């Protein structure tokens, strides 16, 4: 495989190609006749009218190609190298010292594969759910893909910021046009929250680029140059960290910046929720790993800052779980479970041991798979019954056994049962974090138990009680398309649960380099929250 990839120069063009393919796909979609050009009145059900096939097939095939092409990275990536791979670099705005620099390490690699995989599946997930304005919908999905991949690849902070904002607009439209009843409120809230957070980051980026370019006399926004800024005054570093922190904390979302999440996740169409949960939430934690920690190690390891963040993370775990416990709406329940899971990721990142960081990365991947699948399943059942209230269901296991099986497996993965990816991930976080933050870890472990409680209670009420609602008796089970879309996710869940080594080994060099880098820059590590420390 490697020889073949080398022979076509794969690593030299793959990253820009991954950015370009979806944009080309979006352009192709607009070349197919729109309903307007065919004289079909707006608001028509385009699936019944038979004109939705063009856009959805093009989008699916394009993203399938995208996924297959991106898979090559799995082999071409050298796990032993901790530095940047598949580098692509060209000048963009020389006058301002802005370059178009792309590159990946082990962390970005996994995120990119997760993105391309989930995107292809989420097209299948919206196959029958999106019935109007399909041209717009599927082209926005493609542009969204470019934006998201760009964030994971960007090694120039200007480019990073541009991509960060680019993914905002398609999602805003996806929620606002194809979302549920309160979509208008949810979409504007999503947009404003993210934008307020990221604009302060913009100020920080301009400032850092200027500092990095002081010697050359013009700004330099490249990642390595900013990493090499010799001395920031501790006051400046603190405020810059806060600016990055706000942008990422909103995106994660950390308690108390999470209030946009339930609205956006619940009101978004199924595929929108899947993408929000599986990929977009990872931008916050990815941002912490990639930018906030390495740029400002002294601030992020400062005991007060670190304790605050870990406390917020643990509050997120407990609070998310407790709120999820009492949700009558299944989609909201899954949304709040994200708050809890991402709290776990934040704990792992700020505990900052190689294990905890790797665990955090595994939670990110695992949460992407299991929560993505949960939203898909909720969408599937919603398309049939048009309600998301848990009390409207009951005893589904008898009517839709396949659906029940899949939902059970995904639930078990979500609560971290051994043999699924969730276990590996949460175990690593807890083990790793215990070294540096024992009390926080202990409380977070209680959160894991709460997680089991709300998920199991929910599927008990959905699947296993008496089949007492006559409407539920005639539900149809998963069809072929739905199976096609769920089976790959299930396979990954089990694979990562049983044999996570290939994934871990690809991320290991990068994550231990990160930990070392941060610690060596910050000097001696401070024990936090009481008893811990080395």
């Amino acid at each position, binding site marked *: 495989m490697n020889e073949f990839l080398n022979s076509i120069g794969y690593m030299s063009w793959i990253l820009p190609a991954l950015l370009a393919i979806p944009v080309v796909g979006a352009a192709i979609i607009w070349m197919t006749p729109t309903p*307007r050009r065919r004289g079909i009145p*707006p*608001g028509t059900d385009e699936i019944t009218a038979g004109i939705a096939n063009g856009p959805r097939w093009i989008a699916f095939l394009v993203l399938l190609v995208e996924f297959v092409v991106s898979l090559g990275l799995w082999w071409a990536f050298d796990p032993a190298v901790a530095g940047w791979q598949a580098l692509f670099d060209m000048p*963009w*705005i*020389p*006058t*301002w010292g802005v370059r178009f620099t792309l590159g990946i390490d082990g962390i970005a690699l996994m995120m990119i594969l997760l993105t391309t995989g989930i995107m292809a599946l989420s097209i299948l997930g919206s196959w029958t759910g999106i019935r109007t304005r399909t041209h717009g919908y599927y082209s926005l999905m493609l542009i969204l893909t470019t934006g998201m991949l760009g964030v994971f690849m960007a090694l120039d902070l*200007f480019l990073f*910021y*541009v991509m960060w*904002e*680019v993914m905002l*607009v398609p999602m*805003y*439209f996806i929620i*606002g*046009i194809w979302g549920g009843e309160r*979509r*208008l409120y949810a*979409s*504007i809230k999503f*947009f*404003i929250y993210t*934008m*307020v957070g990221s*604009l*302060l980051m*913009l*100020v920080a980026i*301009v*400032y850092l680029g*200027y500092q990095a370019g002081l010697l*050359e*006399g*013009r*700004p330099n926004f490249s990642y390595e140059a900013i990493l090499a800024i010799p001395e920031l005054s501790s006051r400046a570093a603190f405020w810059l960290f806060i600016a990055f922190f706000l942008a990422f904390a909103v995106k994660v979302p950390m308690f108390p910046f999470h209030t946009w999440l339930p609205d956006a996740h619940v009101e978004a169409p199924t595929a929108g929720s899947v993408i929000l949960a599986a990929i977009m939430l990872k931008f916050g934690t990815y941002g912490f790993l990639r930018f906030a920690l390495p740029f400002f190690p002294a601030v992020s390891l400062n005991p007060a800052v670190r304790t605050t963040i870990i406390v917020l993370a643990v509050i997120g775990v407990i609070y998310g779980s407790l709120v999820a416990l009492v949700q009558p709406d299944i989609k909201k329940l899954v949304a709040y479970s994200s708050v809890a899971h991402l709290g776990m990721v934040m704990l792992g990142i700020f505990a900052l041991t190689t294990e905890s960081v790797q665990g955090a990365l595994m939670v990110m991947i695992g949460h992407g798979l299991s929560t993505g699948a949960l939203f898909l399943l909720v969408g599937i059942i919603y398309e049939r019954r048009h309600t998301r209230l848990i009390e409207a269901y009951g005893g589904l296991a008898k009517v839709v056994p396949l659906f029940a099986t899949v939902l059970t497996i995904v639930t078990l993965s979500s609560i971290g049962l051994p043999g699924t990816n969730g276990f590996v991930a949460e175990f690593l976080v807890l083990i790793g974090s215990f070294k540096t933050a024992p009390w926080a870890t202990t409380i977070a472990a209680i959160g894991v138990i709460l997680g089991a409680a709300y998920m199991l209670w929910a599927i008990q009420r959905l699947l296993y009680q008496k089949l007492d609602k006559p409407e539920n008796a005639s539900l149809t089970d998963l069809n072929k398309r739905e199976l096609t879309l769920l089976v790959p996710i299930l396979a990954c869940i089990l694979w990562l649960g049983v044999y996570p080594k290939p994934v871990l080994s690809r991320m290991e060099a990068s994550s231990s380099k990160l930990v070392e880098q941060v610690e060596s820059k910050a000097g001696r590590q401070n024990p936090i929250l009481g008893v811990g420390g080395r």
Partner: protein
Amino acid sequence: MPLDLSKAAQLSLALTPDLLLFAGAMLLMLFAAWRADSAEHQRRVGIASLVLIVLTIVAVVMFARSGITAGPGVIAIDQYRWAADVIFLLAAAIAIATSLDYNAREGIWAGESHVLVLFATGGMMLMAAARDLMIVFLGIELMSIAVYVLAGLNRRSAKSAEGAIKYFLLGAFSTAFLLYGIALVYGATGTTNLVMIGERVVTSRLDNDALFLAGIALMLVGFGFKVAAAPFHMWTPDVYEGAPMPITGYMAAGVKAAAFAVLIRVWLEAFPTAYAKWHAAVWWLAAITMVVGNVVALQQKNLKRMLAYSSIAHTGFLLVALASGTAQASTAFLFYLLAYTLATMGAFTVLIVLSDRGDTRISLNDINGLWYARPGLAVALTIFMLALLGFPVFGGMGFLGKWYVLQAALQAPAPQTRLAIVLVVMTAVSAGYYLEVVRVMFMRQRPEGAATPPNPLGLTRFVIYATAILLIVFGIYPDPVARLATAGTHRAPGAPPAATRPTANTVAR
């Protein structure tokens, strides 16, 4: 060899593009009066005016590339002037091009309306060229008087008349402030030449001179009125609402730009050493303007009024660059100005198409579900709104303009960090009203029986396409514009040329 501006012939050479425009405008005035007013004649005069503008742009570009420089005197010949001129002419061209159909619809048959735009533009060019407070004043009056008339162009509309009289009275009042300020500065320094004022401030140690500082303060008030900075912005919404739509766009882009161009030149050439004194005033002016413009714009339901407040907000953003007090403010200004002109004039052009006779039907409710009726217009307006919001890629140059202003603010010797934070917070507030426009167009249903706006044709259509495409293209590949803006960076006379400066070592020319 630098031109000797004390000789009449060489002084006229330095003013060639301006004189070309004025001479052409006078001929066109005769041409306009030659036939009885009619829709066709109005159109003919408009087309001729466009040709004249193109010729003037050619002249400006030729001068910019000729490398002619000027000795000390009342007129500046530098890239800053030429860059600003091109943008004024662009704004004028868009205003005239979109007036052709608009005037026919509104029954404004006076061909002189186009000629007035030309005169106002001539005044602007004079302002950009001024290196003497008397020329500054001359330029401002030339521009203002033409614009007072333009604001009241629609004689049949009470709103237009109200706006025009308001603008005229307040404008005259503010001119008095400006003139009084000029007089005080002259009294303190004994000269009206910008460069010499700058020198005398140092040699006579005028930093704490009450007369001089009072002069600066009064001038700031005068300019504050012209650029519509809060708290001197009260006239803006009414005048913008009353004026014919193409003129509103022209005022929001061109008039503001010209006042800013001269404000920046005066402040950087005459008062740079008094930075410590005027910094606080400009700082607060910027902060208040941003807050007032953005917060009040949130309340607006009428799109024309909303754009008026948005233009106040953008004044605030530009003042942030000025508050840094460095030459980079002028670079940022030029870049921002182009982005802002394209976006604002594009947005007004879309409003022209959407509105009905008498500028009605431009409230937020009237564009509900516009996407279903006219998807092209909806997409174009979205691009303009996102550009004004300063959003990357989808808003094109708008984001880069903001980026530039932030750079100027943060990279100054005295970084304006707090002001930059006010700027980004207010940008987030502005998302509230810019996105509202996008939201109602795409996410609401078209009401039953709502009239479909006409399909834009001819020059109007061309303007919408061109502004939107330029915004996007330069938003993705901004380097040519960035290079021109860097070349146009304002340099005080005697400062080393750009090439020796590290910040500009990539400039091609």
